[in-house]
């Protein structure tokens, strides 16, 4: 037990800021973002392209490369041996041991994530061997078992296949197999189904749910698809312009969203039961994150924007029961 992490808590990220120093200027990809993940739960991180969700999740394990830099932040994580560490303060060697072993990633495009010159078995085996003292033969046998766990038919044959010999859905399953190979505490999935057909999407999500239960893993799922959020998440974080806009458990968020962005977002999803005339959308475009000035990033598009919204960063307002919103509208002086 420690001050930073609750008993059943797996991860606590605080105050994470990531900037990219490019030719065009300084890109404020993530500003003062935070996140909590508890044991066995499924957390969704929602936002449009450019909201900073991918960069944020990569920053959690320090997976940011120049010209990006993690300017500040603390990411508390409880390791297998029970110790609580700040991942961002770990030396690179230690951090490398956490990745692939205790925290794993699944990325959006399985075709580009897998190395075309290595077989499915190679990928899984090498992830196992890197973190555990196991012979290659044993690792390959485990790879077959893992492929079976992710419901790939005929795993003994598939383990020798190269990525181009597998369909999109199977490739993503292979990626998932490598991710769970060492039974991580936390699986971070960055839009794992966006590149797949709808039917395969459902299968992958079901698979993730089943693996979660079987391995007692927590899942951090990044998506822009609210349907998936409703289906799979326990709690939700909404990001906009590199900042957390709102967070709540899934029912509260869908029933009474408080941030104008969340409200408009939910509006955009058509209800098949209701007859409607127009498809709703949010007017305006994604904010320019270069050389950002203080102020709420959503202000230019917000129908309720006030003067103060354009001038000062919105405050954190606790609405009770896990529900937090960052908006001047809810600020009571």
């Amino acid at each position: 037990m420690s001050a930073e992490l609750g008993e059943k808590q797996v991860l606590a990220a605080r105050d994470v800021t990531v900037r990219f120093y490019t030719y065009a200027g300084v890109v404020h990809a993530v500003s003062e973002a935070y996140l909590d993940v508890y044991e066995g739960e499924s957390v969704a991180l929602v936002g449009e392209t450019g909201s900073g969700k991918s960069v944020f999740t990569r920053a959690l394990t320090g997976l940011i490369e120049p010209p990006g830099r993690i300017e500040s932040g603390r990411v508390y994580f409880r390791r297998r041996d029970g110790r609580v560490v700040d991942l961002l303060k770990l030396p690179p060697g230690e951090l490398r041991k956490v990745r692939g072993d205790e925290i794993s990633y699944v990325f959006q495009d399985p075709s580009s994530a897998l190395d075309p010159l290595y077989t499915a078995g190679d990928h899984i085996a090498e992830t196992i061997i890197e973190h555990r003292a196991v012979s290659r033969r044993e690792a390959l046998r485990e790879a077959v078992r893992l492929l079976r766990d992710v419901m790939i038919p005929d795993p003994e044959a598939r383990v020798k296949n190269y990525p181009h010999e597998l369909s999109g859905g199977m490739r993503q399953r292979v990626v998932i197999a490598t991710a769970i190979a060492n039974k991580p505490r936390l699986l971070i999935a960055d839009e794992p189904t966006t590149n797949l057909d709808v039917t395969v999407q459902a299968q992958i999500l079901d698979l993730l749910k089943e693996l979660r239960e079987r391995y007692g893993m927590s899942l951090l799922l990044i998506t822009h698809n609210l349907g998936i959020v409703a289906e799979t998440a326990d709690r939700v974080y909404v990001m906009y312009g590199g900042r957390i806009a709102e967070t709540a458990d899934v029912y509260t968020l869908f029933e009474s969203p408080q941030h104008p962005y969340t409200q408009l977002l939910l509006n955009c999803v058509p209800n098949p039961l209701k007859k409607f005339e127009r498809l709703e959308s949010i007017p305006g475009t994604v904010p320019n994150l270069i050389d950002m000035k203080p102020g709420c990033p959503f202000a230019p598009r917000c129908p309720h924007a006030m003067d103060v919204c354009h001038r000062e960063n919105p405050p954190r307002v606790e609405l009770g029961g896990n529900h937090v919103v960052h908006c001047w509208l809810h600020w009571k002086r």
Partner: protein
Amino acid sequence: MGLGSYLVRRLITFLPSVIGALLITYLIAYIIPTDPVRAWVGEKLMDPSTLERLRKDYKFDAPWYEQFAFLVEKLLTGTLVDPVRGVPVVQQVAQRFPITAELAIFGMLFTVLIGIPLGIVAAARKDSAVDFFVRIFALFGSSMPAFVLYYFLILAFYVYVRASLLAGVPTLSPGCAAALENVKNAVPLLGHAIWAVGQVPLLGGLMCMDAGVVSTTVARMWLPGLALGLLSGGFVARIVRNSLLDALSSDSILFAKARGLSSSRVWRHALKNAFAPIVTILGLNFAGLLTGAIIAETVFNIPGMGLYIYQGITRLNFPIIIAGTFLFSVIYIVMNLVVDLAYALIDPRVRY
């Protein structure tokens, strides 16, 4: 396996290429010259009866398909004979191949020694002074006229500093040559292959562990090899650099890092992916060295195929040019085939 069927498929395109080579050689030998007999004979004056005999023997007055068949037979069996001097030109050109191959091997050695390390460093230190230097080096390499560079290297390393030889090419010792002959006769296919490889003096010398042959060969060939290496080294370095940078920024490398793989394993992924296209470039470079050797052999006085063809040019010996064109084309086609196969070995996606 996929590789086997790929090999078969690739061989199927090999045959039309050889036929194409024969066709073009035929065009050059019989069709394009306004007076083929005059071209074959050169500027030499001949009496009418000899000319008549020539016209019949070489089928100059026969219909095109007879001419083509005649040429194909002569070229493929290696029995094409220079009508004026009675020299079996195909054989003459072919037996100089090992020397040209030796020159190409030295050139390749230096290209790889210069290009690959430079490319890796340029990728590791992107946008640094080294990177800029590699870019300039590559640009100079492709702008420098080869023969000018050759003359200057000769000036530096032969005239001012006697560090190289400029005449003769050491051949295998009798004992070694005999031993290779025995191997060829004893073991069927493999023996022939070993014998063939051993014809290249450097390789034969290495196989027989003949220090004399090897050291004189090196003394003779290192300078032209260095010249060739300087000319294409920069280009190779640039390709290596770009290929490595592409591989390092790919998603599969990100995924590898996200799995916590050690940096040596990550580099292995990157290098393997980067080197697939590099092998192709190196292979094509080697093919270019084999077929572009004419100028190097002329300036460095190396008695290979290229020099023989150059002599054919200056002495207006047309049959040599015909035989040379055909043989060089076949070599080039074979090298391309080898490169494609090597690439298929490395990259499994190509086999389909």
